[in-house]
């Protein structure tokens, strides 16, 4: 009986993609389950639930984190950004455009994590080297064997965000 309150929900208030939410959650709820199940933000995917695959990567106060390796109660007071916060109402974010143009996805399951990890990197390093791109994306697993296309997408995304003129033949290989 002494632990009967372990299941007692706790109040959490947080901001997701600029919108404020308040909810009651059981302490053992992971952040990704909360985002998907409570807030209906199913763009963030649940893969391995042990931090290895990266599909659940979101931004917590501007930094990428695995949302499967956090409890929802820990996000109380935080500002989150999920893949739903990238584009706006029918308009793709330049990173998403780049993935479409360079075929940076096949089944798309891993894509939200790639997009968010790339978002953090390009915010910090607008003109990353290939080594920096590989380092930032190395923690994301794609099982459709799309890494080369993902790297091309990442390079194009950086160029788009910098406002570089489109290179000849862009949209091809």
């Amino acid at each position, binding site marked *: 009986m002494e*632990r009967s309150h*372990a299941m007692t929900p706790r109040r959490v208030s947080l901001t997701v993609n600029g919108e404020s939410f308040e909810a009651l959650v059981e302490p053992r709820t992971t952040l990704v389950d909360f985002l998907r199940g409570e807030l209906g933000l199913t763009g963030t995917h649940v893969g391995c639930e042990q931090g290895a695959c990266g599909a659940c990567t979101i931004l917590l106060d501007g*930094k990428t984190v695995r949302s499967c390796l956090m*409890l929802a109660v*820990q996000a109380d007071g935080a500002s989150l950004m999920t893949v739903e916060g990238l584009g706006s109402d029918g308009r793709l974010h330049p990173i998403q455009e780049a993935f479409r143009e360079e075929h940076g996805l096949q089944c798309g399951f891993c894509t939200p994590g790639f997009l968010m990890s790339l978002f953090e990197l390009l915010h910090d390093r607008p003109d990353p080297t290939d080594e920096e791109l590989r380092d930032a994306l190395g923690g994301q697993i794609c099982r459709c064997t799309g890494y080369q296309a993902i790297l091309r997408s990442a390079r194009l995304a950086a160029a788009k965000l910098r406002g570089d003129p489109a290179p000849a033949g862009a949209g091809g290989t």
Partner: protein
Amino acid sequence: MKPAPFEYFAPETVDEAVALLAEHGDEAKILAGGQSLMPLLNMRLARPAALVDATKVAGLDAIRETRRGLVIGAMTSKRTVERSALVRERQPLLHAATLLIAHPQIRNRGTVGGSLAHADPAAEYPAVAVALDAELTARGPRGERRIAAADFFVSYLTTALEPAELLTEVRFPTFGDGTGWACQEIARRHGDFAMAGVAVTLKRGRRGRCADARVVLFGVGPAPVRARAAEQLLVGEAPGETLFAEAGRSAGEAIDEPLSDVHASAEYRRHLAQVLTRRGLAEAAARAGLAP
């Protein structure tokens, strides 16, 4: 809902955290960055009755330089360590080892104290702490105590910490002139846990001889393995490829019970320990100005 139910506490001071740990004893687990504990909770390999979340505890995430080295708060994230100009300049071995840990997304959340207290035998920080003679500070119900890294890592996922003790900070001594260092590892993929690795320091003495050496292996036993015989081979000698190869062979023999698992056989880990020691010594010697 993956984890089994637990009572959740988010103390804001070290005293509150220690009081909670004392109250719940063996039933409690400290949640630091969660990058190792959360998978264990999600898979229900750990089912603590109480979770004491240290992320809201104030004052545990600073890096400061003292006369005896860099003092790093236990809840400092690995990303903060990685990006600290102070760490890169004053304790480059710690900086280099940090870059080998997992991925940016994990380093954003994972903490220095969490890695040390979790004591995964394949982790970099425990070996680096032993190589540098780091000193760990823990707070418990009876106050504060300091533990030498050499005494801290007891066995697989087991440290000298008492159930009611919270790791608060770690002091990493800095290098004087003429000290070289290296951290080398082999993992299946960059960012994976190492199959084997080594942290090495070499101090330059007179007439191009080694004044001191440290060789600490990880991923090859239940805790960091200090290869004392290999160190003894180096001290007082002029370094060179032959000596490094000999020290590497000795380091391979220092391993009592190499892990054998799906990633690597015990024999392969012993081989890696030899090769990495040789390479690490060459790298450290070059940094120390001891290159033959």
